[in-house]
């Protein structure tokens, strides 16, 4: 009985530790910082459009390096931005399937809530897809999760029970429901916005 909980506890910690390797700080604008997720080892970072508040964002990598970032693409409506930094061999997390999520499955969100670096919070999928009640823009797809996203979580990874990236933490609706942009929309966004400009290695990842 206790052993089961201990194992569960251990694995929850492992999932967070693994996902945290792809979590970055995105510094932009005058105040505070948001989070970002390393999408590709050669310096492609995904964050929320609302985290990128000026034209010269900087990214703090897990190894402590802070680098200037270039805005490759920006979609305010989707609330996703793609940044690139001059770095190679960055740690990434495996991409998961955000189109077949089941209500009740376990998820973990990482970010820097209220500036607490690399913090984690866990919950379950409430529902996903289009037509969720009470969400902005009913026809677009979201992942609704039962956890509290706070300022500083935006742009960070949402991972499943196996630690695979399924969404980008984006906002709260009301006091209790967290929303994340599903990774399949991020893939579409990258294809649409970057298309042939992507390096070969990046394209294979999509």
């Amino acid at each position: 009985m206790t052993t089961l909980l201990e194992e569960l506890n251990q694995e929850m910690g492992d999932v967070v530790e693994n996902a945290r390797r792809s979590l970055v700080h995105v510094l932009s604008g005058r105040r505070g910082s948001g989070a970002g997720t390393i999408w590709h080892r050669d310096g492609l970072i995904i964050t929320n459009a609302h985290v990128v508040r000026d034209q010269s964002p900087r990214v703090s990598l897990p190894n402590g390096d802070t680098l200037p970032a270039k805005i490759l693409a920006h979609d305010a409506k989707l609330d996703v931005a793609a940044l690139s930094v001059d770095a190679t061999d960055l740690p990434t997390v495996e991409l998961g399937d955000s189109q077949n999520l089941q209500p009740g499955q376990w998820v973990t969100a990482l970010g820097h809530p209220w500036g607490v670096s690399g913090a984690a919070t866990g919950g379950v999928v409430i529902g996903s897809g289009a037509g969720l009640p009470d969400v902005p823009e009913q026809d677009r797809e979201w992942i609704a999760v039962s956890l509290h996203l706070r300022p500083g979580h935006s742009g960070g990874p949402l991972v499943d029970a196996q630690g695979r990236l399924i969404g980008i933490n984006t906002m709260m609706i009301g006091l209790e429901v967290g929303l994340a942009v599903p990774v399949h929309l991020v893939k579409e966004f990258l294809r649409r916005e970057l298309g042939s400009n992507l390096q070969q290695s990046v394209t294979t990842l999509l």
Partner: protein
Amino acid sequence: MSEVLANFSNALAGTVEQSSASVVRVEGRHRLPASGVVWSADGVIVTAHHVLEQDENIQVGLPDGQTVPATLVGRDPSTDLAVLKVEASGLKTPEWLDAESLKVGNLALALGRPGQSIRATLGIISAVGKGWQTPTGGAVDHYLQSDVTMYPGFSGGPMVDSTGKFLGINSSALLRGGTTITIPTATAGRVVESILAHGHIRRGYLGVGAQSTRLPDAVASQLGQETGLLLVSVEPDSPAEQGKLFMGDTIVSLAGQPVRHLDDLFATLSGDRVGTSVPVKILRGGQTQELAVTIGERT
């Protein structure tokens, strides 16, 4: 990596999927629809009273995606439950579990279907208490509270355990402050059966206006209670008047149950006592005496 966590996650999702066949959408208000639970395979649906803002033009969204009209069989505001009937057959009924077998700390999933598909959230059982009285006077078998967040449209839906057994019907409206209360299986069963049989919940009736009052010290120590209920009015032709109760009497017990506050009176005036003659102990002129009243039915 993560076999236990992945199994845990898959098991949660599996429980939700399995239970979802007994969870319906209830459209009975202008705002967001709410949820309900299949009570019988032939179309009896239990939901929350407060999510039905109208008595007619109610629709129910079945798990198979059909939306069908529903008639309101009855409601019980005191336990925030209502019963609907739809034309259907072969609906999947859930397996119900009594609150006695629950422990504080057990996992609990709240399910809802405010839209087309099932929605879920997770928490733990925070309290499994004794019987209690809702602020609106409903008698509930167990105080069942969890830390599960009730999202909009989840009221009327079930709380389920880790194996998919239904623990009761969730309501966010019974207590203030966002406390998630589940009306447990036993209470839901009693209320639903009464609504199906009588169209409403039977409640006992005395026909008195009363307020709590301090008893004289000697009487208090003799009875072991500090307060009783002072009658400030007695309705003409009411069970109380027929039982020879008068304004100015102080009720100290009814049917053998101590009566200290109005809540005690509400609790004692339960539906099963309607039509029965019960002893009532009063304080009159400084003396206690016992009379008998026949409990009427509140209409």
